């Protein structure tokens, strides 16, 4: 039963990883940009949620009302001011600018909140669980996170395939030059992509804050988990990303069953294994 339990917890954990991954995958899809600060933005959102809760007394989950628009605004401004000037030049410039942003965010959080580990109390839902089978219980929060990630991926698909903004995203991704001839301002489209990515980051940050301890240096690991979910799942396929997150979560859970030191390592090794045998991921998009 221990193993079944571990696998079930791993699947649910995969939902959180898919949330980390969705925003990353979105901006790579639209502008081929990899945001190294992605993980640090998740952690910054966790702190933002904490500040909102302390200042307003809102329930942590309700802090999204403020955290989501604020993060989206931050993402839009960051894209317009810092990243757009580097787009289209070469691979290195945007990458290194996001690396710089990552350093600034990490140390900014360190200066503002110290290196102490934090956690956001959410009135008991973080510890509540339901026993579905004898010996197998599901945590309420992990189930909520998983459901949220399914909903968010569903909503993202709708935006991508059913709205003018989504059409602009896809057109810009296909052919930036011709997209401009369709009166699309790519600077704005890129800004909107980063804003949307950052809105998802905010939700991921809130869940992270309730689910686990976090500190200013927690960002890079979240970036790597999200990235691994994207690659394992297959580029350009959001449902694949969810599957990738689940594979990663299960691998980590099984690793942890073997030995605590193996939890994260097992996830990384599965990532390299997938890269070795299925370089395009488990569910590559059909073209």
């Amino acid at each position, binding site marked *: 039963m221990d193993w079944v339990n571990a696998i079930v917890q791993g699947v649910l954990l995969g939902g959180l990883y898919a949330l980390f991954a969705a925003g990353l995958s979105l901006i*790579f899809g639209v502008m*081929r*940009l*990899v945001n*190294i600060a992605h993980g640090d933005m998740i952690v910054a959102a966790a702190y933002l949620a904490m500040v909102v809760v302390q200042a307003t007394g809102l329930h942590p989950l309700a802090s999204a009302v403020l955290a989501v628009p604020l993060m989206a605004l931050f993402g839009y401004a960051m894209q317009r001011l*810092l990243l757009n*000037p*580097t787009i289209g*030049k070469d*691979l*290195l*410039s*945007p*990458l*290194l*600018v996001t*690396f*710089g*942003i*990552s*350093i*600034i965010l*990490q*140390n*900014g959080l*360190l*200066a503002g909140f110290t290196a102490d580990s934090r956690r956001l109390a959410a009135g008991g839902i973080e510890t509540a669980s339901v026993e579905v089978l004898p010996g197998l219980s599901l945590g309420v929060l992990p189930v909520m996170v998983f459901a949220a990630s399914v909903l968010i991926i569903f909503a993202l698909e709708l935006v991508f395939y059913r709205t003018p903004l989504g059409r602009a995203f896809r057109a810009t991704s296909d052919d930036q030059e011709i997209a401009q001839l369709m009166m699309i301002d790519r600077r704005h489209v890129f800004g909107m992509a980063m804003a949307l990515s950052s809105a998802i980051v905010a939700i991921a940050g809130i869940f992270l804050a309730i689910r686990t301890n976090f500190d200013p240096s927690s960002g*890079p690991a979240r*970036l*790597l988990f999200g*990235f*691994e979910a*994207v*690659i394992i799942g297959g*580029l350009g396929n959001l449902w694949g990303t969810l599957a990738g997150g689940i594979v990663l979560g299960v691998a980590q859970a099984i690793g942890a069953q073997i030995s605590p*030191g*193996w939890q*994260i*390592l097992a996830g*990384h*090794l599965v*990532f*390299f294994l997938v*890269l*070795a045998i299925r*370089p395009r991921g488990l569910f590559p998009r059909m073209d």
Partner: protein
Amino acid sequence: MGTAFTIQRSTRTSRVTAIVALLLVAVLFAAPWWAGRANVRLLGEILSFVALASLWNLLAGYAGLASVGQQAYVGFGGYALFALAMFLGVHPLVAIAAAGLVGALVAIPIAPLLFRLQGAYFAIGTWVLAEVFRLSFAQVAALGGGSGTSLPVGIVAGIAADRALREMLLYWSALAIAVAAVAFVVLLLRSRAGLALTAIRDSEIASESLGIDIWRTKLLVYVSVAGLTSMTGAFIFLQKLRISPDAAFSVNDWTAYVIFIAVIGGIGTIEGPVVGTILFFLLRETLADLGTTYLILLGAVAIFVMLRAPKGLWGLVVQHTGITLVPVRRRVVFPKNS
């Protein structure tokens, strides 16, 4: 009417550079006699960063392999040195070279895996690799596990009889590594592979159609950079005498600083990393007391340079004076007439 021309690489400035560089190496070689003990140690550290930055610059600036995970090889080199010295009794100075060899060998099977990641995703892949190394070495009990280990006193004493000589030998190995790294970059860029790299940088598709094997050229660069980075890592931790997974595979120490150096000095130039290292250490020696503010400042400066002067400080110098100290480009020279 055919015009005669010759292909020229050296210029008068470059010959002067070669002489000045030789003099500089000679002066640096003599450092133990003109600098204090603490300064020699600092010089050793500076030289190790010259090596790391030059190698990263070759990888990212010339070969388009934007790695943010070179700490994998710094740490691996350090651990390899500790393992070779502690378990096999290899003399530490010999172990520096051996660590480089092992690092290169390890990189051979890794490169094809990482090369499967397209564009910027390669960067994150290199970081995952570094994490795999960090977590794996944390599992090795014989090397102290997660808390790390110190080099046994007996081994340290075995480097040389007295402390002064030991420090001199260590310093000279740093000098040798830095000179080797810079010379390797210059020679590689002047070789056939260097021409191929320039062609790849200009247009990957065009160079492929010219029959340049991009994959093999990148492999060559990745593996040799891994080897030399491992050697540098071996030196760094031999000087520190202590190693732990977190210190060995620190992304801040071995990648963030190195990228900062290359960015402010000038990515894609030979001189940039050297200029950048000097600037970095000037900043560090004056501002490091500021702590987190100092790091925020470094990040902000790097972003500012990327946006406003993407060729860095050395790029500005070249733009305003036209000087290239170390020409790696061939230029076509037509005889002056009429």
